[in-house]
């Protein structure tokens, strides 16, 4: 006979095991251990050189390009499984001297979750070069020990505008490969180096490319187009490939200071991943 506590623990374990399998599968198939990092609003994860958008925990140098303060939030319904969802809020403050950004991301559910808080600063130097630095604190809840463990993860970003239509971006997340050590073992945290380009065919059409290297995973190659079809609407399409080829589609709507984006990715094995973004940009 089970006691109430044992029954509850058994039920929890029954829920937990498949979810751990899902999370593990997701992490393996996602090719990078970066589930905590929210997908950027830039299609196909081509954010590192995206001069039009700043997304939390992507290239902090892009904070420097912001001329207005803004707040935003994001919900990522990873493969339509709520336990794998990722929620993010972000705020950016524009200042003549230095732009600042604050962001928070949460992945998982009550029995397993990870959180990431970031405080970033960036400056744009004469519109040719921007640099940003972000201080992130990562924490994860371990059900086995019923405790949180955390670590500081710095992030550095650069953006160089080579001419009026072409720019290059670079960012490094957790460059010192900090991991978390617990009594049960070591949890490896993502250490990512990204290099990307942005090319303006015209003011309406942008082409971005990006290469990511998470130190213990394969290279990831990504490319995407963003087209401002109407004044209030843009469409985006692209793809990224590492172990799997993942095509991506997106659409964005903007009305006044409010902007709404919906991006989708179709993973050949895991299925559909959808991301919704809402952003409000303040006037000067």
């Amino acid at each position, binding site marked *: 006979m089970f006691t109430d506590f044992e029954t509850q623990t058994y039920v929890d374990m029954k829920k937990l095991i498949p979810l751990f399998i899902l999370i593990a599968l997701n992490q393996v198939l996602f090719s990078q251990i970066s589930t905590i990092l929210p997908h950027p609003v830039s299609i196909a994860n081509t954010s590192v050189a995206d001069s039009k958008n700043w997304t939390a925990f992507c290239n902090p140098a892009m904070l420097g390009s912001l001329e207005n303060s803004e707040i935003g939030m994001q919900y990522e319904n990873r493969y339509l499984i709520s336990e794998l969802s990722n929620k993010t809020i972000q705020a950016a403050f524009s200042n003549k001297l230095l732009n600042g950004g604050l962001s928070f991301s949460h992945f998982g559910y009550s029995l397993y979750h990870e959180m990431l808080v970031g405080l970033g600063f960036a400056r744009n130097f004469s519109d040719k070069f921007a640099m940003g630095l972000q201080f992130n604190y990562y924490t994860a809840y371990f059900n086995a020990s019923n405790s949180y463990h955390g670590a500081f993860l710095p992030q550095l970003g650069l953006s160089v505008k080579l001419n009026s239509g072409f720019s290059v971006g670079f960012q490094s997340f957790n460059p010192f490969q900090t991991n978390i050590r617990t009594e049960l073992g070591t949890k490896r945290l993502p250490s990512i180096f990204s290099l990307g380009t942005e090319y303006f065919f015209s003011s309406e059409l942008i082409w971005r490319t990006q290469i990511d290297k998470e130190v213990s995973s394969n290279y990831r190659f990504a490319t995407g*187009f963003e087209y401002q079809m109407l004044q209030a609407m843009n*469409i985006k399409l692209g793809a990224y490939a590492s172990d799997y080829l993942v095509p991506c589609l997106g659409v964005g709507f903007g009305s006044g200071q409010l902007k709404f984006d919906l991006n989708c990715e179709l993973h050949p094995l895991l299925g559909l991943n959808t991301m919704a973004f809402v952003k409000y940009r303040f006037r000067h």
Partner: protein
Amino acid sequence: MSAQDAVATTEQLIADIFEQYTAESEETLDYDSFFEDLMFCAQNPINLNQATREQLDKLPFLSDIQVENILSYVYESGSMQTIYELQLVEGLDMTDIRRMLPFVVLGELNDQTNKIYWPDLLKYGKNELYVRLDKGLETKEGYQFLPEEDQSSPTSSSNSYLGNDLYNSLRYNFHFKDRIQFGFTAEKDAGEQFWRPIHKGYDFYSLHAQLNNFGKFKTIVLGDFRANFGQGLVLHPEFGMGKSSYVLNMSPHNSGLKKFSSTDESNFFRGGGATIKFGKFDFSAFYSNKMIDGDTVNGTFSTIIKTGYHRTLDELSKKHTVNQQIVGGNATYTNMNLQIGVTAVHTQLNNVLVPDKSVYNYFYFSGKQQTTGGIFYRYRWKKLNLFGETAITDNASVATLNGFSFSPMSQVSLVVLHRYYSPEYDTFYASSFSETSRINNESGLYLGAEVRPFRKWKFAAYADSYRFPWPKYGIDAPSIGKDYLLQADFNPKRNISVFWRLKYEEKATNLSTLEAVMPVIVPLKKASLRYQLTYSYGDFSFKNVLEGNLVQKGNPAWTYGVIASQDVSYAFRRIPLKIDFRYQFFDAVDYENRFYSYEKDVLYAFSIPMYYGLGSRYYLNLKYELNKSLSLWFKIAQAVYADDRESVSSGNETIVGNRKTDLRFLLKWEF
């Protein structure tokens, strides 16, 4: 076109277009129809000032976006005054325009339903007669007979060929402008009897007639014909588009009813049909009743045989053993921005189709009758062209294909295509965008882009990610795959064109060497790079090709393949003679490293021989115009293997030795 162009003749241009489509294909595609349709366009050019989407769709090298842009330009500007205006159409570069030139004209708007008078028919009608003969020089296994064996006796071995090794086809066509066409085709494949006790006459006969624009009748077809509608999920029995370096052209072209005059012995209908036009509506109906080949025993058969070969007693016993009746119809509404239509088709067999059950074909159609219906659309909104089709069979299985293409600026064109074909969806004449030739058991998303960032340069790329939710032929478990292509075209001068094509694909395959109870599949990775340079100088034209590939099946080391060729063509000035010569070297370690390489041929023939092993191949192709009416083609080709093999090919096609030589002759008579 000038003689200085890298591609000098319309015939060669058509062959090059086809080659570009089929460069990555391993299927036998119907070149006859492709060539004939485009040659017909060259003889009856499309008047751009009154062209319809349907007419421009006949030019398969134009993408949906380009067709829409041409129609839109003509609509907005009223009419084109000069062909140079094509340069003002978004998304068309000089290469596209040069390709279009043989097939289009600019004319006044006129009534295309003028009455036809008999004298005009006799005076301006054009007759063409083609006679083709093929023969291999080496004797193949199927033609070897024991001294006491009478090859024409029904009791002789059912595995050896009954006829001689001569291939012969006869083709007659008549056309009056683009209003009236009729003709016939007869064909005997090598190994089939021509006039012996078992079979007399040609093995395959085909008759066709087509009338266009007679009163309310837009098209009337009688005899052998084809019917293509929508995106091909319900009905498209001919050459379907797919993945190629024309990355934007994935949708099937050539919609509607049209005559069939090819030597393809299976993918056509036999009966009659008509399309009637009422304002913006087109209504089509057709009926077909023909015998098809199948391995029929006691009223059931497991496979429809489409090879068209009836060379042995065994093959002859399967000839025309099943009656297939097909009735179908289509209604389409078309206006400037919208096209929407419905198609339905019912197929009735007199014997029951029961596929030999194995895992991969578990969901294949079985039974005597099937009904399939579908709805297709095409809609232009701003710069977006949305298109798609959804079809359903009477077992409630669904196939759907949807996508959009757009050209945000003249230098950039993009396309997205999603398809989902359920494992249970299996219909007789579907042909559409797919990784395999069968439209079922597949889902995937395709992205394509064509970018012209600088003058003279064009970059084309696609990425396709797909999934087979149920085992496929050769893949005994659900699997996924991906495909990439990147091609850079550079045209520095009018007489020079060069491209680099990089392709990578990864899919699953059975581990053939393992005899396991449970299916074992392994990844098959193939990367290939092709470089091609075409240029002309005076009366000479040249083509250099260099291609290499690397293949990994499972975990062993990568195997390689290399192929290199040099083509030289020369057109004599004083005599009407044209010569093509090629020398080709190949070294492909494994079967998976095999190459398919297009080579020039006699008119209406299209060779894409497959090579693996070590060896070389060379050919000489001659075209001689005796006078305005008579032309002759002759080709001799030989492959010599240097890898110590003692025989070439397999089964009845086996040749003892390391050489294979083919002769081909064609006579064309125009009157």
